[in-house]
């Protein structure tokens, strides 16, 4: 674990006072929205109904845990966030919140989120949430991110846990359905982040983060995006053959996966000169589509479940 300190973590920039929004930003609200949605889908499509208040509280505590791990990530990565254009305006590198404050908030919220989820739902869900926070803050942020170009591949597991936790809240267990939802996000993460790395050209190299674009070059990254997108297809379609799926899910998933593969093929066929000439138009489009892809995939699980309740969905 090597980490270069770009600034004193106890220092807040003089004259800057953090507003409430800065503390909210510390919890990475955009990542939280994805966590809330996938955890909610995991909980709602489970075969065991959950009381609405317990469901709402559980999703909020899962989101709080995700936010806490985001704050811990911002504490640890403050030095690299400061040199990356995409992250330089975050509250810690911008000097509005001190790194130590971010760590304290991250630890406190982690404890609250895990404890409250144990009380609201069950110990398995709370244990999975604790492991997710540990995986994101320690395994990904502190260890893998600065060590290996596989950082995104393995670290993607942290983002894949929320639907498993949601499922565990409802059922008290883990099953093939929740593992398929995990696998879907796990396989989706690398092409999503590598598309971002392609057009955030100098950010990762300036920060010394060994992203695939930096260690293996941009040609290899384009090839990896295509391979991982092709590997994602059987996972997404396979999920449709479990208790989660049905004709509607499979139809939607076929279209989404075809679209994603076409995007990955277009990225693979381009060279740097063409990408630079049009300002990474294709890479940016695939990155944006990948977000829509995940929301629609999980939306399709939900739709299939709703149809099943009406006696129309499922196999």
């Amino acid at each position, binding site marked *: 674990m090597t980490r270069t300190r770009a600034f004193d973590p106890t220092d807040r920039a003089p004259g800057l*006072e953090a*507003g*409430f929004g800065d*503390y909210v930003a510390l919890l990475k609200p955009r990542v939280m929205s994805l966590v809330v949605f996938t955890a909610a889908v995991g909980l709602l499509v489970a075969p065991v109904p959950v009381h609405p*208040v*317990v469901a*709402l509280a559980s999703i909020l505590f899962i989101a709080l845990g995700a936010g806490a791990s985001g704050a811990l990530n911002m504490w640890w990565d403050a030095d690299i966030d400061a040199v990356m254009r995409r992250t330089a305006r975050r509250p810690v590198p911008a000097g509005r919140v001190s790194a130590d404050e971010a760590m304290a908030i991250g630890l406190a919220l982690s404890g609250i989120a895990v404890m*409250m989820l144990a009380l609201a739902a069950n110990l398995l869900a709370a244990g999975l949430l604790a492991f997710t926070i540990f995986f994101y803050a320690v395994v990904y942020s502190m260890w893998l991110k600065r060590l290996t170009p596989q950082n995104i591949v393995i670290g993607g597991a942290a983002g894949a846990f929320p639907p498993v936790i949601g499922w565990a809240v409802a059922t008290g267990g883990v099953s093939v359905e929740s593992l398929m939802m995990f696998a879907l996000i796990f396989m989706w993460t690398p092409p999503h982040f590598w598309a971002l790395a392609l057009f955030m050209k100098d950010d990762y190299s300036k920060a010394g983060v060994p992203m695939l674009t930096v260690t293996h070059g941009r040609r290899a990254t384009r090839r990896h995006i295509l391979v991982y997108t092709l590997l994602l297809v059987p996972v997404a379609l396979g999920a449709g053959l479990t208790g989660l799926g049905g004709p509607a899910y499979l139809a939607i998933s076929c279209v989404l996966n075809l679209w994603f593969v076409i995007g990955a093929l277009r990225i693979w066929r381009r060279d740097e000169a063409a990408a630079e000439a049009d300002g990474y138009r294709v890479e940016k489009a695939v990155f944006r589509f990948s977000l829509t892809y995940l929301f629609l995939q999980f939306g399709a699980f939900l739709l299939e479940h709703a149809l099943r309740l009406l006696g129309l969905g499922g196999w």
Partner: protein
Amino acid sequence: MSFRPDHEIHRRRFGRNLGLGLALAGFVVLVFGLTVVKVSRTGDMIAEQARDGAAAP
């Protein structure tokens, strides 16, 4: 009588305190709601067990 206008720092502090206050109030409401649900469910379970016990030979 004239009041000095608030400095930007005071506005930010007020916003932070208000946000934290609302978050804490929301947390209290959530815990209260959870308690009501859990207690009423436990009550139902006890009543069910008592019924089962009475019905047993």
